[in-house]
């Protein structure tokens, strides 16, 4: 399992992604459940538009709670096949994940080096990869409930909402959601932390390793290949 590490300046995306007072020097440390120190930056998940000053934890809590209700409805086994249920979860995720910020964060400093057509191809593949991964991870369950167990301020801008996914069988799974509120009032999810493992940070570590060897094209090829992975077989 990929450990949660500290994001260093070398692994961060370019300054041009940062806004306002945010810069490479602006680091904040967020804590989750008092167990893991999740060191994140303020600037790395920033794009220059429509960014709110802060995300009140109680509002992030309500956002995730409402989303969970929609997800449970989408997962109702009486309303379609596994593929259809996953399709609905995928749609829900595509509307509520900030895929562009997640993608830029995962590519880190290589985003700045990437040419426009590489950026476009990467973003398309990354979005497809994230949506297919998460919709499989979260979709299809029966008898699942998602309980919001708490919300706290993570960084100056973001809140972290802790949840437990309870299943019909098996132990509950701890999932935390990094949420940001935008000026237009929209909320977006910027990261999902399963059992203390930050998904975007794990992606970043993997992409950095590949990019250091094979450049941005290597990351693009790797994503293209990853999308050929087989699912469960009958």
């Amino acid at each position, binding site marked *: *399992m*990929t450990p949660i590490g500290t994001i260093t300046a070398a692994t961060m995306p370019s300054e041009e992604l940062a806004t306002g007072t945010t810069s490479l020097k602006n680091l904040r440390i967020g804590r989750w459940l008092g167990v893991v120190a999740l060191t994140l930056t303020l600037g790395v998940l920033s794009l220059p538009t429509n960014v709110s000053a802060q995300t009140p934890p109680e509002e992030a809590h309500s956002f995730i709670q409402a989303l969970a209700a929609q997800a449970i409805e989408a*997962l109702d*086994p009486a309303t379609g*096949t*596994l593929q259809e*249920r996953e399709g609905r979860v995928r749609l829900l995720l595509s509307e509520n994940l900030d895929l562009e910020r997640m993608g830029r964060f995962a590519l880190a400093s290589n985003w700045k080096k990437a040419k426009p057509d590489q950026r476009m191809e990467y973003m398309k593949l990354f979005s497809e990869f994230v949506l297919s*991964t998460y919709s*499989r*991870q979260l979709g*299809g*369950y*029966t*008898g*699942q409930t998602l309980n919001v167990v708490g919300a706290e301020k993570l960084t100056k801008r973001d809140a972290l909402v802790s949840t437990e996914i309870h*299943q*019909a*069988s*098996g*132990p509950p*799974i701890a999932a935390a959601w990094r949420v940001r509120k935008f000026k237009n009032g929209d909320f977006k999810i910027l990261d999902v932390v*399963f*059992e*203390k*493992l930050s998904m975007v940070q794990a992606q970043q570590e*993997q992409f950095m*390793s*590949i990019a250091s060897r*094979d450049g941005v094209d*290597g990351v693009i*090829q*790797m994503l*293209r*290949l*990853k999308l*050929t*992975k*087989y*699912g*469960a*077989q*009958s």
Partner: protein
Amino acid sequence: MSDMTNRSKTLRSRVIERIADRLTGGLCIAVLAGGLATAAGAASFEDGWAAFKKGDYGTALNIWTPLADAGDAKAMFNLGTLYDQGRGVVPSRKQAVDWWRKAADAGSIHAAHNLALAMISGDGTKQDYDAAVKRLTSAADGGSVRSQYSLGKMYEFGLGVSRNTGDAARWIEKAAASGFHRAQYNMGKRYRDGDGVSQDLARAAGWFMAAARQGYAKAQNHIGTRLARGEGIAVDKVEALKWLYLAAGAGHKKAAEHAEALAQSLSDTERQKARTMADSFEAAPNDVF
């Protein structure tokens, strides 16, 4: 953490098995292991699949685990996907890779493919292009279409093998012939450019068309522009506009620009016809793999 959980589960299972052996001579392990194992005792692979499709991943896991322990390669592979995707369990790439390795060694081409991908990206296992190529070759020879395509990419980029565009084209064309849209699109570009094959614009158009019919937007843009120019295929501007409308509708920006330019050279009737054809188009995706 999940590995620790699983180790402790394994330990617990062993303890239960020992107690069961002492009490019953080993006849009632499933009963003592709890309700889940009760179901698993008589359950078949298909029972696990039925539970999986319902979304009851915990039951699927409990049915497939003893089957996998008994050597069922398909159960091993599916357990790997449950751990990989975190269905009913905490996601664990390492557990996924462990099961895929066992399944691949037991003959599963799907597992060999997924294991190779994990080796390429260093996901749950050591990054190792050479080992990935060996697994991909074995799966590709065994008929895995996705492995044929992926192996072609390894030859194209010289990962784990010497760079060889001829071998790249040979493997990717195998996957294309089996109906993999991404491979068909790739062969369209290869025949267009003479990359690893002799340049052949008619074949290029043929592969672009095959992928376009499956709903692949980039191929729709390519076949649209070729139909408009008569490159490797007879000119048909209305048909060209149909494909460009479809690609543009799927978010392909260049296709939208091409469609706008082409539409200006057509009459209202022709534009309307192209739009009607695009609206009634139904992709025919090939699910051979």
